[in-house]
């Protein structure tokens, strides 16, 4: 058909007009660091594994997860999830239940028997890990993944460290712990239990280790030196909790007083309830809001009938009773004694005033630096002795070139991973490569309009009667559909999740969709630089940059 001149035009002929020349700023895709990832002491890429879980690809999600943290079923139960504290969703409605999902994936892996990938070629290098707590297990796992031959030497009869000997079974059922440790060991790690290392200096010289990672934890209860009568029954919480793994549980009596305000105190109190103590009191010198214990632990303890005595110190312990002194907070929030005393009946007093490490095994290591009961390490977690790395509760967190952290299992797992990376580099004679950290994807970067409002999924809980009498697990897991629902609450902060918004909202069709998993590309031939894509990106994964002259 011969078209009339000029009046009639061919379709799409405007593509000859490159409107990209109109642009003074250009959009650029970026990846920002999600606050959850940033907050995770174990260095998990939470956003990434949630992304995989969102479409029900649980195994892929789990595999992504265990690249950083090899104990998801454990950590999903016991981690105090700083990721959730940081979660941007909290500013929208409520935080994403990351821990529940981690646990769900961990349980799925156990249920389906998903195994960890076999390590690549053998490096021929031998690394000793002293201690099979979370730090040691993590370090061993990552070292093994790097191809090194790893031996874990554990003084106790069974592996797990504080995971086994410090955390009550109602929070962490032992079959779960065993399954995850077994899976790590199954990657080809030599596990030697009941093999205490008395003198690491000696071990390092007499045995052919290319590197050693030590993480023996803080297994000794701190003694507050409370005046006590001879017959007073005083026990420390660490001993109590460790005793739960023995054949016969400790005898506590009907009335138990727990002294301290940390998580361990509450673990001890709740354990005492389950051991038959009808009257369990937690005594803490400050107020509830100042308790170091996590709120959820306090709630659980109160639910289970544990009583709290705030603003109280123990002045003296006698057989069958103790003397409390009432405290007041000064203007700085410090408790000050009032001299008002009160007697409280108690068959047993459990002290939960903190723990310290037994560092005798490293005392003779040349070059090692110990201060305030902890070992100083460099940012690569190496001690003053070359080739000796340390992590977990036994090190000075400030010395690890990171902001001071809580002493938690999650932190320990992070130490293990960092140490493994550092050891791998050290063995190769190179410096550990710094991991680039992207700018954090703050709430302000998000366009939350695009996220459906969705209340969090509540994990089911065991009925109270059984919580007070058995060590059955208190918190239930998510099922497959609730897990899917919860995973989909993730906002994918700072990371493109292929929502097609940029592709759709561009008035100039200047966004090219590259296909599943491949994200998008800007067609700068036509992009006029309006910035709608930036404004409408739900997760803040696009920025405008000035055009270079």
């Amino acid at each position, binding site marked *: 058909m011969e078209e009339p001149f000029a009046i009639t035009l061919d379709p799409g002929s405007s593509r000859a007009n490159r409107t990209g020349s109109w642009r003074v700023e250009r959009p650029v895709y970026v990846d920002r660091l999600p606050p959850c990832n940033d907050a995770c002491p174990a260095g998990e890429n939470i956003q990434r594994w949630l992304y995989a879980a969102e479409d029900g690809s649980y195994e892929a999600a789990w595999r992504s997860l265990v690249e950083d943290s090899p104990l998801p079923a454990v950590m999903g139960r016991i981690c105090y999830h700083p990721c959730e504290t940081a979660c941007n969703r909290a500013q929208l409605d409520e935080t994403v239940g990351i821990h529940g999902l981690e646990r769900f994936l961990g349980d799925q892996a156990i249920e389906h028997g998903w195994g960890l990938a076999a390590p690549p070629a053998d490096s021929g290098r031998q690394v000793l890990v002293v201690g099979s707590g979370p730090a040691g297990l993590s370090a061993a796992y990552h070292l093994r993944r790097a191809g090194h031959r790893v031996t874990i030497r554990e003084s106790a009869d069974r592996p797990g460290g504080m995971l086994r000997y410090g955390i009550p079974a109602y929070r962490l059922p032992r079959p779960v712990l065993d399954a995850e440790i077994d899976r790590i060991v199954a990657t080809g790690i030599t596990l030697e239990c009941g093999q205490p290392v008395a003198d690491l200096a000696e071990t390092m010289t007499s045995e052919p280790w290319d590197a050693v990672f030590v993480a023996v934890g803080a297994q000794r209860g701190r003694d507050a030196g409370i005046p006590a009568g001879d017959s007073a029954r005083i026990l420390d919480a660490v001993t109590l909790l460790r005793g739960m793994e023995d054949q016969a549980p400790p005898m506590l009596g009907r009335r138990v007083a727990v002294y301290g305000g940390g998580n361990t105190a509450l673990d001890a109190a709740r354990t005492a309830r389950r051991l038959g103590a009808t009257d369990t009191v937690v005594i803490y010198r400050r107020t509830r809001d100042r308790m170091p214990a996590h709120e959820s632990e306090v709630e659980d303890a109160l639910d289970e009938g544990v009583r709290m005595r705030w603003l109280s110190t123990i002045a003296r312990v006698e057989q069958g009773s103790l003397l409390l002194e009432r405290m007041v907070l000064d203007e700085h929030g410090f408790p000050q004694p009032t001299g008002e005393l009160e007697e409280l009946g108690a068959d047993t007093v459990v002290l939960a005033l903190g723990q310290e490490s037994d560092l005798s095994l490293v005392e003779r290591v040349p070059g090692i630096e110990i201060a305030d009961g902890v070992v100083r390490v460099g940012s690569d977690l190496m001690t003053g002795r070359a080739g000796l790395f340390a992590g977990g509760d036994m090190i000075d967190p400030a010395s690890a070139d990171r902001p001071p952290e809580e002493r938690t299992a999650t932190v320990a797992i992070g130490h293990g991973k960092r140490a493994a990376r550092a050891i791998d580099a050290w063995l190769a004679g190179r410096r550990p490569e710094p991991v680039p950290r992207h700018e954090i994807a703050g709430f302000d970067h998000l366009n939350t309009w695009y996220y459906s409002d969705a209340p969090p999924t509540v994990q089911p809980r065991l009925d109270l009667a059984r919580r007070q009498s058995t060590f059955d697990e208190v918190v239930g897991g998510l099922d497959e559909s609730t897990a899917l629902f919860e995973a989909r609450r*993730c906002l994918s902060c700072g990371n493109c999740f292929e929502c097609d918004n940029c592709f*759709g909202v561009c008035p100039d069709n200047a966004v090219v969709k590259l296909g599943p998993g491949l994200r998008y590309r800007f067609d700068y*031939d036509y992009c006029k630089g309006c*910035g709608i894509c930036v404004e409408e990106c739900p997760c803040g994964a696009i920025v405008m940059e000035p055009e270079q002259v």
Partner: protein
Amino acid sequence: MPEFATDGGPTAARESGSPGSVEPPGSGGAGAAVRSEDPPGSRDATGPASPSSGQPVKFYQVGSFAVGNRLLDPSYRTVQSDALRTNALDSGHRACQGCGEALGARYALDAAMRATGGSMVAVNATGCLEVFSTPYPESSWRIPWLHSLFGNTPAVATGVAAALRVKGRPEVRVVGQAGDGGTVDIGFGCLSGMFERNDDVLFICYDNEAYMNTGVQRSAATPPAARTATTEAVGDEPGNPFGQGKNLPVLAMAHDIPYVATATVADLHDLERKVERAMEIRGARYLHLFVPCPLGWGAAPRDTIRLARLAKETGLFPVFEAEHGVVTAVSQIRRQVPVEEYLRPQGRYRHLFDPADPDGPPARPETVRRIQEIADRNIARYGLVGPAGSDAPGEAGPSDPSGRPYETGEAR
């Protein structure tokens, strides 16, 4: 396994089998039925279930508000998320940066193309859309397209439809399109005729609330107080006077035509569904599409969609649909905001605020109050805000505001 107490949460609610909250259309009080959001706490029996069981899962990471959703079955995904979409309006057009009309036209026509299987003809009025898309020697259209005049587009579309009918090609559908000037003002006579005859045309008005092509002059669609080149922000009552307005969707409904809908470029799903619905119907159909104009409104190009969203969320632009003159569905406000939030980013309302303190309190609070009254009236008239204390606490998530079945049978 231990038994768990059910102390609330989705599991409990699902097991209790509480009914869904979707109301049938037409059950609303003021003739406006509402497609209620469906909170997860009260999901019905088709609620979340194991994806492996093939049961629908009713929630997505981003709901249905973003353009695409990798979790959706492809057949439920938007046209705009399709890498092979028509791009009815192709790259290289000369619209301003951030043009809402260019976006709206592609949204609407791509959707119409999918609904018609690519069997469609468009007739375009004179205006920005026409000028920026077809300056000789280049056209941005990938569909058969005809431009005649400013005020005659509905009639030309009628002619095309008549020709297709007489030629025995009923499968080829006709879309007429114009800006607000071409629809509400100069084209209204022809449009009314097209409605009255119930000609088989979908007519789309891209409403950017003034004559932008000629340099931002007032139209009958220009809102009160807005500055245009013919309602300058000078004098005692700067900007466009508060008049009676000319509510074209309602005028269209007064013709009792089979389908009338309003939409914005901020809710693609809603828009596409409405185009799809319109294409299921024969006869005269009218879609009034709200398309912000960065140039004419004195707004940042990047804010185009945001402003459209705010127009809806303030209540200033009610989003609804009607069949045969009766409102059948209303898109409720999801996050209600005062009109100030909508007005402040726009240069055409700058005179309502203090130039020395543009983020401070309005310099003309009385005018802002009157604009808020307009929004409030819309909210009351159309029922844009759900009843308080309903079973949808705040904004509910896992329902689809577009009304499309909200399922991923194939979640994997």
